[in-house]
């Protein structure tokens, strides 16, 4: 660590001084010119973290003669770091087009001038996706996918306990049409009482989904200031519900992104996962060789949404005009269908949602279930509620803080009560000016 820690420090210092330079440089502000032959670049770069359908990139090159180079990141978090540092240093190191995830969209859009304004494309997306991708009425991100939530479960494991044998009986187990998070967690308690593994990989996904349904979870939509967490009874009650379940060892405490997540599937550690559409491909990859995984068409509280992304164009880029063309091209309904085939991510484009290619494709990993159909129905059932509540600039941070409390209970480091107290103490230490 000796040498590298120093060099890491040097990088940090360099970043600070780069900041100073950026402060002198001032905002770039991309001149909005038309994409034409005279300003056509040889290649365009796209920063993202999922696999791209190669055919899509090839046909763009055929059409325009521009080679598309994908700067692929291992996960959203690293793409976020690069984007954040690039934006704070006047666009240094940024790609022409960036994929931005909903969870950190607000942070990246803090300075709207950082992003090129994108022309309106009528009737391409569901309304709430367009609203999410806009800042003060200006579109700055073209939606790729949405993350309708379902529950993936292993019917072989559940059959072993006699609680459920197929997607229908699993739906009944977690509460049927009136399913709530409480009935879901109670089903989990029932499961772990008779099985030798956990019910769910981690309760943090479920908790985030529940938080997402609150109209204003952590912050006051009027002033944008955070609510005092100690007095935030809605969040506190939800926290208690999930933390109690964590105390009862309903979950393994290993969420997606954890080093042991993949191994957990292979070792059959849990029987269900709260699964947004974009995660289906990732699960198929990690649980390869483990039979019996299915997608249930029932979801607590009538459905939800986790994530989904946008393609946005940093305004400091040298090729903004063509980058906008590329962002447009990558978010057409046809492109969305290609992407569904590649990674399982569910389109936010209206035309693609109802396309037979999505609804009728059978997924061999999930026992030839029509996964696109199930997610389409769940997205329709969730409706506009899937858009989630108000997200101010501190939403992601406070959410992490509170979710860490659940993780604390999952790892047996604290009781539900202690964890809540620790979360509140951490929040108070940050010294926010809070809303009434």
């Amino acid at each position, binding site marked *: *660590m*000796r*040498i*590298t*820690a*120093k060099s890491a*420090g*040097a990088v*940090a*210092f360099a*970043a*600070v*001084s780069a*900041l*100073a330079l*950026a*402060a002198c440089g001032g905002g770039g502000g991309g001149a909005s010119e038309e994409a034409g032959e005279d300003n056509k670049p040889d290649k365009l770069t796209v920063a993202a973290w999922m696999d791209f359908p190669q055919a899509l990139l090839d046909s763009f090159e055929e059409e325009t003669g521009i080679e598309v180079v994908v700067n692929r990141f*291992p*996960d959203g*978090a690293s793409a976020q770091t690069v984007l*954040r*540092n690039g*934006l*704070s240093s006047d666009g240094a190191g940024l790609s022409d087009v960036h994929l931005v995830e909903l969870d*950190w969209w607000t942070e990246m859009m*803090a*300075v709207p001038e*950082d992003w090129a304004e994108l022309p309106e494309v009528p009737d391409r997306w569901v309304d709430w996706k367009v609203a999410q991708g806009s800042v003060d009425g200006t579109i700055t991100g073209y939606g790729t996918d949405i993350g309708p939530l379902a529950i993936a479960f292993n019917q072989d494991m559940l059959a072993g306990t006699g609680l459920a044998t197929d997607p229908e009986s699993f739906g009944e187990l977690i509460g049927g049409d009136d399913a709530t998070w409480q009935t879901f967690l109670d089903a989990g308690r029932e499961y772990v009482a008779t099985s030798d593994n956990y019910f769910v990989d981690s309760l943090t996904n479920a908790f985030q989904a529940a938080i997402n349904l609150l109209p204003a979870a952590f912050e006051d939509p009027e002033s944008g200031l955070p609510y005092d967490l100690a007095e935030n009874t809605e969040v506190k009650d939800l926290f208690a519900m999930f933390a109690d379940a964590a105390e009862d060892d309903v979950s*393994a*405490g290993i*969420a*997606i*992104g*954890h*080093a*042991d997540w993949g*191994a*957990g599937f*292979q*070792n059959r*550690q849990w029987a269900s996962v709260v699964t947004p559409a974009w995660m289906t491909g990732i699960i198929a990859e990690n649980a390869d060789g483990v039979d019996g995984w299915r997608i249930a068409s029932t979801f607590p509280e009538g459905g939800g949404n986790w994530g989904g992304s946008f393609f946005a164009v940093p305004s400091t880029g040298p090729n903004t005009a063509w980058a906008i063309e590329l962002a447009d091209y990558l978010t057409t309904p046809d492109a969305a269908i290609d992407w569904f085939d590649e990674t399982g991510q569910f389109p936010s484009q209206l035309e693609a949602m109802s396309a037979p290619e999505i609804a009728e494709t059978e997924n061999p990993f999930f026992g030839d279930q029509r996964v696109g159909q199930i997610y389409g129905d769940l997205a329709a059932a969730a409706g506009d509620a899937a858009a989630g509540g108000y997200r101010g600039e*501190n939403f*992601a*941070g406070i959410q*992490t803080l509170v*979710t*860490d*409390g659940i*993780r*604390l209970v999952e*790892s*047996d*480091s*604290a009781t539900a009560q202690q964890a809540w107290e*620790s979360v509140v*103490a*951490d929040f108070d*230490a*940050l*010294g926010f000016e809070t809303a009434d």
Partner: protein
Amino acid sequence: MSTRSAVPPDARRVGWGQRFSRWDIKVSPYLYVSPFFLLFAVFGAFPLLFNVVVAVHDWHRRAGMGDFVGLDNFTWVLRQPLFWRSLENTFSIFLWGAVPQLVLALLIAAVLDQNLRVRTFWRMSVLVPFVVMPVATAMIFGQVFGQFGLLVPNLQELGLLTGSDSPFFSDRLLSHMAIGSMVVFRWTGYNALIFLAAMQAVPRELYEASTVDGAGRLRQFFSVTLPSIRPTMIFVTLTMTIGGLQIFDEVRLYDGGGTGGGKGGADNQWTTVVLYLYELGFGDWQDRLGQAAAVGWIFAVIIAVFSLVNFLLTRSISSSRSRGARVTRAQHRAAVARARAVAAASTRPEAAAAAAPGRDGPPPDAPVHDADVQEGASR
């Protein structure tokens, strides 16, 4: 200058040459070392000083410099429980990494210092872990200590661990030990080679003399080797302190570092000061560059003080050892003198036997002594 007056005017061309060569002697050494200092000024000194400016301002990533806030950032940091917790973690991880490392490195160096076959091979071998990037080390060790890794399932099999989760990611002390083990893995060989270099420089006569005096291998190690490599011990301990306290890569990637990870655990069990600094300034959401700079300065002072303490401690430990050896040798000489005097003055056998302690008898490990001599000669 005094030579110039002695040189006739028509020898001016020679004078120019002389002047150049004089400049060459005076200036070029500075030119040769200047690249380092220029680079250091740009990438070391300037950021260091600039950090002071950042630390006394309200500073954000995108907005840059804000209002002058004086020492507010410093008091804010000192009021954060997480800062103190990360400081505790840092020192704990440092101890778990440094102490076993020091002992092991000395041991390995002592073994390598012997007359081994294919000694270059062994010396190179201990450096292999050092070739592995810390990032790779952290990823691999993270897996080893994980729930399904090499360690935890086997410990469960042996009944040493109950529960199916890996305690190395929830228990504070165990996580420190796990991270300390990465440091040990990576740095032990490197320090062993530094120790080895120092041990090679210890005069072989000392070993010969101590062997003649009847000192065993262990005794030689503590009374000859350790005191002789004292300056190297101080050097290694100091660099270890400075580097070990700045630990970052290992803690950042211990839990995989992906979404939701890399923050030192749900309860900040293994958040170190540098990781805390990184999270404050460049992390997901806080965007507090001014406070992060303040952490940097506070931590720099702490490291400086701690290094000084370590320096004094190391110096006193090694010198008290050598003083101990000197006393023993004095006692030894006194005993010999007494024995001679007794032998000369009288022929009473029981007095001679009482005056000469058993360890003054013939060396029990004479063959070893021969090997040492051979080895010394071969160098």
